[in-house]
């Protein structure tokens, strides 16, 4: 699975990088960014879903890789 932030929706609330700093960081204006290539291992899946579920703008997608 792969994480993706929609930059059109993200407003920089920072819930993702507050909750799961292992998967998310911020840019120099505070908008969220996915660290690395966004690949989510099985170990990280619960944390990834937590971030998705807490984004006030629904800006984070967890995509199933085909």
């Amino acid at each position, binding site marked *: 699975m792969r994480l993706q932030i929609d930059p059109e929706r993200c*407003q920089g*609330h*920072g819930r993702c990088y507050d909750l799961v700093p292992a998967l998310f960081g911020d840019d*120099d204006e505070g908008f969220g960014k996915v660290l690395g290539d966004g690949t989510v291992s099985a170990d990280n899946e619960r944390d990834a879903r937590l971030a998705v*579920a807490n984004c006030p703008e629904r800006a984070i997608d967890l995509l199933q890789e085909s």
Partner: protein
Amino acid sequence: MTYDERFPRGVPEVDGEDEPGAVRSEIVVGPVSDWATDFSHLEPEWAADPYPIQDDLRQRCPIAHTDRFGGGWLPLRYSDVAAIAYDTDRFSSRAIIMGNVRPPLDLAPVGGSPPISSDPPFHHDARKLLLPAFTKTAISRQEPSTRAFCHSLIDAFEARAGQTGQGSQGGQDGYIADAAAEYAQHIPMRVIADMLGFPPEDGPQFAEFVASVLEGVNLPPDERISRVNALFDYLMTQVHDHLDHPRDDLTTYLINAELYGRKLEASHVVGTMALLLIAGIDTTWSAIGASLWHLAKTPADRQRLVANPELLPTAMEEFLRAFAPVTMARLVKDDMEWNGVDMKAEDWILLSFPAANRDPAHFDRADQVVIDREINRHAAFGLGIHRCVGSHLARMELRVALEVWLERIPEFRLADPDHEAESVVWSTGQIRGPRSLPLFIGDLKVANS
């Protein structure tokens, strides 16, 4: 003395004059007849406890109306609040405090206090100027001094209790301190004064400015204008001081900042300073106070957080959801039918993030405070392009204030739980939090044993 023609010296604001093009409406005060058709967020019943009113309206309206303030609407559902926050085409931020004066139409898209009062496309550029100073990383630099300051506030009332001797209440030894007036209030005041580069001893004046702007909405217009002018006179004095003595702070940054290849208009500089000062104080003061109020009344949550401090970040989000301090306003741009109601151009929208945060269609157990709520997609800092620019600062201040309090004062309760309505005073208007919160601080176990 450094001269900057944008900021002439010795020219005080003229009192008693509206801006040309502003429209006043009749001031209506007094008991509300029906909250669905005559709501007012400035009446004492709303200040004391707005949630039962909001819950009732959400079920039977769900968009309430009032003829007060020249006409306005109050949506109660999360979905409606979100839709309006996202719809900057049809709802303007030209004014964000619902009151009896609508500022001139040509104030858009900048507004009086950019970027909160700005509409697209100007909003984006004005906001971009502020964002780097308010990232989580930039704000983390304020954390050590904030923590030390919180300790110093507790040192002060502990020392006072030591001098006057501890009292006893119901067989318990301890003393009384006001968590709103002696603690919560001072924390955001000191931090934002530091960031703007204002003298820390001016704090008491900031409290007056905050009350004038946010709670003075139903004052006679001339008095309201003169109070707001006192704020702008103060800010102009600070600008002149910073022109003479530039330093590494937000005021000097704004004076030198450029947009579209030129320095900002004076009204933009001073309007943004006013925004940062006012919005930075009342809001966080309210969030800290409301959180401590809940913990004073809920021993199980208090004991759990004292025993498990690692739960605080999660609990804090729940306090922000359940006691969201900030309600915004919008103005309807054109006549339209919107979700079943006939909105007229220039109608107010009272955009209640607190009401959205208690919508049972959006939150499980919406009316309960669940301090380990894992999924908490609340809207305390707004939604869409106007997301609170200071949210990372507010969260840092709230977390540090609660961490230090619970570490130093694990045992506390309301000082007068039998007369809470008289002893705990909540603010009126769009920012809600306790302004007086007397707490009994002491060894609560003694009486329980």
